[in-house]
């Protein structure tokens, strides 16, 4: 009879257990793997605020509404529009990167407009000014599109606010939030608002979700 020391017995027992429990542990590990989700559907972690599925839906609604506005999308000369987050104010209780809203909207609107609107970038104007200076100093040639006297002035700018109304039941932990994203097209010469689009989200839930 082979006699084993207690340490060796424990080692053999451990290996045996590992062999039996191996698939179960592996299965458990797989459950923690990242999964691909549809960006337009509610995710696994969801709360009462603005979420991924709202962005596409909101942008789709706004783009269709803008494209039906004759003052903006039916002009003989396509209007020039600044569409960035510099004048989108977040007054809501949720922390959010505002660029994700304006980038989604600009992307969809550029695809839909197909030349009926022109988009002016002020976010990266420093890059434009730097290249213009290099061309005029003769460091680089004039490129293929030629030189212009000045960069494009804009006719309209997207402005807006994100606001929210929060309520919470401390007995049940249930919380509710109404989030309103209100976007407007501001005439940069005359100061009038030529379009308004509002997207509302009202959600309730008890899950403790942190947006960051």
């Amino acid at each position, binding site marked *: 009879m082979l006699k084993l020391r207690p340490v060796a017995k424990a080692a053999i027992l451990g290996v045996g257990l590992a062999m039996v429990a191996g698939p179960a542990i592996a299965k458990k590990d797989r459950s923690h793997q990242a999964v691909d989700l549809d960006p337009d559907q509610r995710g696994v972690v969801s709360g009462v605020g603005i979420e991924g599925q709202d962005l*596409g*839906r909101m942008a789709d*609604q706004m783009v*269709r509404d803008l494209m*039906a506005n004759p003052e903006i*999308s*039916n002009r003989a000369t396509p209007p020039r529009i600044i569409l960035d987050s510099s004048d989108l104010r977040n007054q809501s209780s949720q922390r959010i990167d505002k660029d994700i809203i304006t980038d989604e909207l600009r992307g969809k609107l550029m695809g*839909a407009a197909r030349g009926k609107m022109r988009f002016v970038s002020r976010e990266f104007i420093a890059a434009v000014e730097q290249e213009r200076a290099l061309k005029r100093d003769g460091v680089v040639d004039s490129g293929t599109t030629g030189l212009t006297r000045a960069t494009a002035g804009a006719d309209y700018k997207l402005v807006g606010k994100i606001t929210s109304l929060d309520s919470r039941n401390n007995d049940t932990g249930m919380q509710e939030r109404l989030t309103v994203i209100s976007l407007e097209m501001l005439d940069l010469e005359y100061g009038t608002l030529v379009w308004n689009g509002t997207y509302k989200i009202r959600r309730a839930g008890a899950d403790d979700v942190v947006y960051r």
Partner: protein
Amino acid sequence: MRMYLLGAIAAGALLAVPAQARENRPVKCDIGDAKRSLSAGGPALVANVPSAMTPIDLNAVQMTDKKLANRVVVEGMFARRTETNSVEVITRFVNCTKKTVELDARSSFMDENQVPTEDSTYWKKVILAPKATGVYRGLSIGRDEVKYYLVEVRTSQP
């Protein structure tokens, strides 16, 4: 004198028409009638093998689940051109039940060859109070090229 009297009676009858409306009775539906109604025979989406699926009528509402089809009736379907010549479809639903019904609707737009002119709209939630109406609106991005549309409806999803 008799002529005046007849005229007065006729005018009175015309004025009385609104008073004959059913005002104090909740709506009643016959879902079976709606289900059994035949296709108008207009344009439709047909499978490559025609018998492989029932045709999907265009310029119409398509319910995607039986549960909803047993609870909601399409009362009216309208389509019109906007000032920019895009198409706006408007659908009015009636909730035939005594409970609130939530549905999602989306629209698709096609050219004369039934080719999609753009992505379908996102699903939009419509909440129908018991025995009440609710309206869905969808706007196209495409303009002159849009010839057909389809509104799809499903039970609301979270």
